[in-house]
């Protein structure tokens, strides 16, 4: 905070990141590389929203790092004029974990897709979430493999007919929000590529979270899975979307939601029974119940922040252990370490 106390709010994930001395604009975050996604790809909208949001962080451009895996979405770092690494398939959360836990002065963003994060990289995703590493994970979910030209993905609906499944896919899909909540993620949200305002608000909430933030972004692939999320984008979408806002009633259209007898959420017409959204509940069961409202026909689809709870982040705990050890016995002395306890002299 500045001396006069009028400084704007500092995002929670940036406590240890230096503050920018000069203002930046969206232009500063655009690299000179030509963007090469297919015309009409939802990735364009997400990139634009992300670039436009970054100046809000008010951190120097050089302290922002974007790490990605492999897939269409993972090309994003090339287009953002910060530090970036386009790594290998599925491994971005692991690489970002090493970077974020050794460099708490950086704002680290992971860009991934449904195949990258949930199939080949599923293990790294869940472990980075449970560790609560201070990274922000943006999962572009288009429910298809785009870069390899149209195979079904771990979020494709069962029975999906693709090149690799001409008779329909047999796999039951993941629900990414449920998976993240099952891993005890401290921040879980969902948004849609086409709703710039909502997308930006979710990015803002994620940036304000100290620890791992998981954002699922419904993203349209016009080539291999066009209109996968169309019911959430047409004129009737308002009746389907449950816009989660902390402290506000959880409502699908005009219908409120209440807890059923088995802890599941179900519709209620009685306004007194309708629950208010509490993103800060320590127990993830409620947020999990919200995530289970999803249905194949999108009849009630929650978007917004499912869960946001405060827990010490991994990088801070790691730094604290080092600080504690040094406070207790001083910095390490190499000669003493090498000698150890039992030495002898040869004359």
């Amino acid at each position: 905070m500045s001396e006069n106390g009028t400084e704007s709010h500092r995002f929670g994930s940036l406590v240890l990141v230096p503050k920018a001395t000069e203002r930046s604009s969206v232009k500063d975050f655009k690299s000179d590389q030509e963007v090469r996604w297919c015309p009409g790809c939802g990735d364009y909208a997400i990139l634009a929203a992300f670039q436009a949001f970054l100046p809000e962080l008010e951190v120097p451009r050089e302290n922002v790092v974007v790490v990605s895996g492999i897939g269409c979405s993972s090309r994003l770092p090339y287009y953002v004029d910060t530090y970036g690494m386009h790594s290998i398939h599925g491994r971005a959360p692991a690489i970002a974990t090493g970077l974020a836990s050794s460099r708490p002065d950086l704002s680290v963003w992971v860009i991934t897709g449904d195949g990258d994060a949930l199939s080949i990289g599923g293990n790294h995703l869940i472990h980075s979430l449970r560790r609560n590493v201070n990274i922000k994970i943006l999962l572009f979910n288009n429910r298809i493999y785009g870069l390899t030209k149209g195979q079904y993905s771990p979020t494709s609906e069962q029975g999906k007919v693709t090149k690799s499944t001409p008779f329909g896919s047999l796999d039951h899909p993941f629900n990414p929000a449920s998976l993240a909540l099952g891993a005890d993620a401290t921040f879980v949200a969902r948004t849609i590529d086409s709703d710039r305002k909502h997308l930006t608000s979710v990015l803002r909430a994620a940036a304000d979270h100290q620890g791992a933030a998981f954002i699922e972004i419904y993203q349209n692939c016009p080539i291999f899975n066009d209109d996968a999320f169309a019911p959430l984008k047409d004129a009737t979408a308002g009746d389907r979307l449950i816009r989660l806002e902390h402290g506000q009633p959880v409502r699908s259209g005009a219908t409120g939601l209440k807890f059923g007898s088995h802890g599941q959420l179900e519709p209620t017409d009685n306004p007194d029974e309708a629950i208010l959204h509490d993103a800060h509940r320590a127990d993830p069961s409620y947020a999990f119940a919200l995530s289970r409202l999803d249905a194949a026909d999108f009849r009630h689809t929650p978007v917004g922040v499912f869960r946001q709870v405060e827990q010490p982040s991994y990088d801070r705990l790691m730094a604290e252990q080092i600080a504690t050890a040094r406070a207790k016995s001083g910095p390490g002395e190499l000669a003493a370490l090498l000698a150890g306890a039992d030495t002898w002299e040869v004359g």
Partner: protein
Amino acid sequence: MTKQVQKLDHVIIRFAGDSGDGMQLAGDRFTQETAIFGNDLSTLPNFPAEIRAPAGTLPGVSSFQLHFADHDILTPGDDPDVLIAMNPAALKANIRDLPRGGDLIVNTDEFTKRNLTKVGYETNPLDSGELDQYHVYAMPITSMTVKALEEFDITRKDAERAKNMFALGMLSWLYDRPADSTLSFLKSKFAKNPEIMAANVAAFQAGWNFGETTEAFSVRYEVKPAKLKPGTYRNISGNTALAYGLVAASQLAKLPLFLGSYPITPASDILHELAKHKRFGVRTFQAEDEIAAVGAALGAAFGGSLAVTTTSGPGMALKAETVGLGVSVELPLIVCDIQRAGPSTGMPTKTEQADLLQVMFGRNGESPVPVVAAGSPADCFNTAIEAARIAVKYRTPVILLSDGYLANGSEPWRIPDVSSLPDISVPFATADDEAPEDKEAGEFQPFRRDPLTLARPWAIPGTKGLEHRIGGIEKADVAGTISYDPDNHDRMVRLRQAKIDGIATDIPPLKVDDPDEDARVLVLGWGSTFGSIGAAARLVRNGGQRVATAHLRHLNPFPSNLGEVLRSYDKVLLPEINLGQLALLLRGKYLVDVISYNRVRGLPFRAAELADVIKDVIKSV
């Protein structure tokens, strides 16, 4: 009773028992006492992968061999002079290694009918006469221990468990070892359980007193301290030396150390050791898998840490793709492969040198990486510093090869003067270093190479003006942006290779040990065969024959004089604990018809065995 003292110049002693008998601990303590006494020494722990194989069975036998001497020695010795067998299984598994006339100390309490049957003895070998060719000391070690601990308020089981300390006490007396370090070790190990501590101390002392008073031992042995190079010494295992080497490298490079690791035998002890040293700013990250371990390390390298991952062969296979990414993005990364017997799970606790070709070529595309190998447990320290030096200077992954034998074996180490260690620090790139034309262009050129080393700038996040993107996709030379241009790819493939090849000018030439300077046969080695080859050459030279030896630390690139050295001998013998992996490389590169000698038994070579092979080659010249 005053006993006669017999002077010996060296002793090889093997402790063998069930894996629950505490033989590794007894061996470790005897080693420590021996080190403090000032003998030169070398050890070979040999244990099953199972934590507790069924008690009393052959697969459950664990042993620890120690060779100590009044002169410098190179190996843990071939055959033991003394075998301590704590049960019939240990006897059966080890007796064939004991030469005729050797000393055999047996714990008779365990020679019950049931235990004998378990390992296929139809009659008790202690009674059958089959051990007549040895000096047998049959002693009821378990019951003597239990009796000595009668007054302690501990369970019978706990009392029995102290039998390794009784045996240790007895042997410590027999070889006149200083007991202080073991007593203080026991005091700290059992600090939280004073009764167990007192019992173990009492068992040790009871064993010592028994040795002194029993008529079974008519002599006490004396092995004088070795005349080693003056200095301060300690005993050290390969994994500890490697961990210390990494901490030292971090200080010498002026970079914080980051270790990403996943537990795997026989590499885990490096993780354990480094996890203790938070005071040095060491960050240890136990990852969810081998891939995350190396991934996190690469992420930390991008951020400017001295980044390391440690593993063994199976983990190396999993890390291959990320090491390839490291080659492509050209970041420093130290990858330690503590080799074990393969393929697949193989024999996790047994040693082998069969990952050489995996680390050289086990990645997609043209993916050259420097490879260095440690030659002895203490040498793991220097090798770690050398790996770090190459990694940070050339911005490349470097593979460090050790193995199960070096990892767990130990030897005296002359502790280096910290001020004598090399400065291996390199500066990070800053906007000020940019070439004028690049500055003008307005974009940082992350693949503008140093003309001498061909290393690209190490520009870490947080550095103003050097924002850039790197990745596994082929990059345009200099600019580092995505490029699918055919000629650019050809150039980048060659540049990456040339950078690694160029390291040959930055490493010492291969030194040949040829005391008579007219040997016609050269024995070349790499890695942990250093000791066996050296000891074998001594045997050959002591027999009046001439042989030269040379040992490779750098396996990629090779020292620049290697071809010349190979061609200057009539015959080159190359013993490897694999089926001829280095031989394949040498034949391919130098067209020299090296003679391979290969055994893959999960154990180091025996010196006498190698000496015979060398003599055969000399004969053929």
